[in-house]
Each structure stands twice: as structure tokens, then as C-alpha cells.
């Protein structure tokens, strides 16, 4: 599957296209295969996202998991500061990233 991702223009937060808006939670991301360029262009022009691009992902335990480790770090936060990630209390999160 392909996910569309970018950054929020104002806050810089990493965001994922949910089908109707942009969320910081990758669990809400949808498959955009085939439509990625059109959505990216429209959303960027409206400034609802900054520098969007598409990444490969697979479903994993019911949620999208990017194929590349860099995108997984990006989705979650720095592995060396679990307290600063989106899932500070999740002990399994290291495995999800790495």
C-alpha cells in the first residue's frame, strides 16, 4: 500500500493523509495508491500540508507500517527518547520501529 505523508506547515508535525484530512497518527492513514499525485498537489496548494510525498507500507496488526525504517522513526519519534514519541507508554514500540 502507499501512504501520503508530509509536515504541517505551521507546526512542522509529521502528518498522514486519512482520506479526508491530515493526522499525526499513522493508524488513521489510508492507502492512496493511484491517487497520490493528485491529492498531494491539491492539499499542498491549499497549504493543508507541506512537502507531501508517498511511501510504501504494509498492514501490520491492523495498522499501516511503513516499509522503510526512516519513515517508521518519522511516524513515531526518536527511538532514544521514548518519552518524546507518540506512544511513550508502549513497551513494544521499539520493535515496531526497528
Amino acid at each position, binding site marked *: 500500500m502507499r501512504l501520503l505523508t508530509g509536515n504541517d*506547515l505551521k507546526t512542522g508535525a509529521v502528518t498522514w493523509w486519512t482520506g479526508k484530512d491530515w493526522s499525526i497518527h499513522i493508524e488513521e492513514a489510508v492507502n492512496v495508491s493511484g491517487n497520490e499525485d493528485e491529492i498531494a498537489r491539491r492539499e499542498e496548494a491549499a497549504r493543508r500540508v507541506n512537502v507531501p510525498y508517498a511511501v510504501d507500507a504494509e498492514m501490520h496488526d491492523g495498522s499501516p507500517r511503513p516499509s522503510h525504517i*526512516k519513515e517508521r522513526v518519522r511516524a513515531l519519534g526518536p527511538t532514544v527518547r521514548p518519552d518524546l514519541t507518540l506512544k511513550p507508554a508502549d513497551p513494544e514500540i521499539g520493535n515496531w520501529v526497528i
Partner: protein
Amino acid sequence: MYKYDQYDQAMVDARVEEFRDQARRRLEGKLTEDQFKPLRLMNGLYLQLHAYMLRVAIPYGTLDSRQMHALADIADKYDRGYGHFTTRQNIQYNWIRLEDAADILADLAKVEMHAIQTSGNCIRNISSDHFAGAAADEVVDPRPYAELLRQWSSFHPEFSYLPRKFKIAVIASEKDRAAMRLHDIGINIVKNDAGELGAAFYVGGGMGRTPMIAPCINPFVPLDQLVTYCEACLRVYNRCGRRDNKYKARIKILVHELGAEEYTRQVEEEFAHLLEQGVEPPHDELMRIIRMFEAPNTDQTAPNDIDRSDPDFALWVDRNTVAHKASGYVSAVISLKPVGGIPGDATAKQMHLMADLAKEYSFDELRVMHTQNIVLPHVRKADLHALWTALDQAGLGSPNLDTVEDIIACPGLDYCSLANARSIPIAQRISERFAETGKTGTLGELKLKISGCINACGHHHAGHIGILGVDRKGVENYQLLLGGSEAEDVSLAKITGPGFDENGIVNAVETVTTVYERERQDGERFVDTYRRIGMNPFKEALYG
């Protein structure tokens, strides 16, 4: 240290307003991201892996307590309570919002700080010796010259759209404590036989994909022609540096492709022309700046003896203090490398503490080392125990300067969108391994540097042991390099062979130190033994 006059203040204030306007135009859509990017980069604002990242300039690594307090306040108010000190003596914040950026710059301007030209294809922060003004071996304090060049390079109308970034280092000693030969321009202030001061210019060094050691293109430029000579070097680069390929655009490639001789010829030709254009500030300006760097009013009667009865304190004194030109004083190094910690990171609380300690014990001055530690340059020996006690309580008292625990690491894949592999966990595991086995002391001086990608922000080419993180079919892999040095014995490290996974690289580092222990002769550091016996014994131990 340098203090702004009304001109300097007006310039940073104008820059804040310029950026505020640019950010507004971006948020309103009047600027595209492509148009905005070089503008925000020239104010140190990156769009990074997790958020915007702001790199604040700490000119030649020098700051006072008021400024360090302000950096701590910014971490608390706008970021997540910490900052990262970098391999170019700057500080970075990783969780910045574009909508706050202009306010942050305004807060910085209030304490004579900025983020001007800390990124982008322009002249970057000018670095210098972190022991400047204190080191007994310096010819002169190099920082006034760095300050002169900082002003010359700020908002330079001709050199703000260079082929690529441009990094300058200025030192004034035979010992190179600023990796001067690995910069685009390295300047070493020297004395000639007549006792006159001049600048030896080394142009075309760098790390990254193609590491190179800068050749000396002029061994003695008179100091009253410093700016003119720099201008000549930059103009030849701006005109002739490659613009067809981002990875071949640094000046080191130009010097390499033209040859040092031809590059020098062009610079000298431009220099002769520019000498007639009146670009050099007058001698009075240099004297005005030099007066602000006068030596601190040290106590001539300060005692030299230190009570070493506390063994932990004695160890810290032995490892983390450095001789000072004034009797009864030392420079003290605050380690930002606790075992298992994140190299170069400091919490806001720690920054506030370091500021207070600087005010109390170091004539209100701190330095940022390019090796990501903090220096209190002028500390009375008699105050060391009180200082160390405070540092130790705050997790800042690790006695590991220049040891295998004193690891230089870029932020790596945990923070950086350019990275191929995580560097911080490797640093953590290595320091833990050596602390566990108790080998840190026996190994002595061992400079270990880790980069998470080929851009080499961790300076791995210049490590006695270097580690380069790569992407091997989507999996992190680590190459081991040996024999580099950033000091006056500058050399580029060589790769040992096939790379290792995360566990493997930690073991590999331990393996090569075992070879060193076995083979070393009197007084040899790791890098000395490597240079004497060569790569083969290490290769054998690693790969069988």
C-alpha cells in the same frame, strides 16, 4: 568576549523582522516552499525528521551565562526542555514550530544571539579553539579574528548564494583543537621570524562523501589583509565552484579539480585586485574587537595545589581539566557524555546550572566544544571541588574527556532525515560496554566518532575509531574505520572491511581496542599503535 554595539544590535533586529515577514508570506502562501527554503535555511530553520529544527549560532563557541540561560528558556518555552550541542559549536532544537520561529529569533536577539547563516549555501558559523584565551600554547587569542570574519560574512551580498555551504575555522596554535585542516577555509594565526602575526590559509578541506585535508595556499597573509584574502578565496569559489552536482559543489572539489596551485594563482590574482577596492576594515576596528577579549583578571596569588583525597574528584581533575596559562587556574570540561546518555544533549535545567556555575567559577564565560562538551575556560583550582560536586549531582561530572566514552555522534536516524542509520544507540551501547568492562581508563586517549550517514556530521573520517552508518537493503549497517585524526596530526580514517550490524559494531569496537592493548608500546595512544602496526592485525582480529 564580544559585546554588540548599537550597529550589531540593529542588524540582528532587522534580520528578525525580515524573517518574520518571510514566514508570514510563507504561511499566507505568497512564497512557495521552494522559494522559502533557502530563506529559512539562512536563518537556521530546517524541516527535519520530526518537526522544524532550529540551529542557533554560538559564534566561535563562546557564550556567557545570560546567553546560556536564554538558550535554556527557549528549550522550555518553545521546545521539549532540552537542546543539542553540535560538532560546529552551535546548539540545535528539534521540535520547533514555524509559527514560533520569529519570536524565538526575537528572544535570541535580546541576548545578542541569532541563527543567522547556520544553514544554507552561505558562510556558516566560524569556529575556533574552545580553549582560546586560556591555552598556554596559543600565539594569540584567535577569537577576535573570528569575530572580524563573522561580521564580514554576515549578510554578505555577494556570497549568499554559493554553490554550497562554507565553513571557516580560526586557530592560533600549533595544536589544532578546531579541526582546522578539515574546513573549507582553515586559518592558523602564526608568528614569523620577525615576530609579526600573519594568517596561514588552508583551503579545500572537508569531510562528507569525499574527505580531504586542506592544502596550505598561503603560509602568511598579513593580518591587516585578512578580510581581503577571504573575499578573494570566496569570489573564486562563487564564480568557479561546481553547480551541476550537489555532491561535487564544495570548495574542496574545486581545489582538487583545479589543483591547489591553480586555485592559489586565481586567488592571488583576485586578491591583488581586491586590495585596491578598500574592503578591509581599518586596524582600529580590529583593535576595538581585540580589547573585548582581554584576559580575565585572574588572581596572581591563586594557589596551585588541589586536595586529591577524594578519588572520584581526583579522577575528574586528571581527566577533565586542562592546563591554563595563568598559574592557579585550569580550564574545566563539563562532559555531556554520561555513560549511556545522548552525546551533546543537555536539559534546560542542566543549561541553567552550567550558566550559574560559569558565572560563579569561570568569569561568566562558557565554550562549546566541537566534540559536544562544554568548557568553563577560567576556573581557579581552589574552586574545582565545589564545581565538580555541583556538576556530579547534575549528571554533568563524567570524568571521560577524550576517552572512548567521550563519543562524538551526530543525531542520526533518530532525528535526521538525511541519515541512513541510528547513531545515538550505538554511542550509548559502546559507552556502556566500556564502562562495564572498566577499560575506559586503560585505553587512554581514544577519539571515537559516529556518523549516521555519508554527510559525516559526526566527523567519523577524523576519528581514531570512526563508525559510519549505512543503509544495507533497508537494514541499518555500520562500517568501522580506523586511524583518523582532526588534530595537527590530521589524517583520514580507513575502512576495515565489511560492515556490521548493531550488535556487531559494538563488539568490533571492543575487538580493535583489545588488539591495541595487546600491541601497544610505551606511551602509544590507540591511533599511534594503529599507525605503527597498520590495518592488518585489526582486520585479522575482526574478520579472522
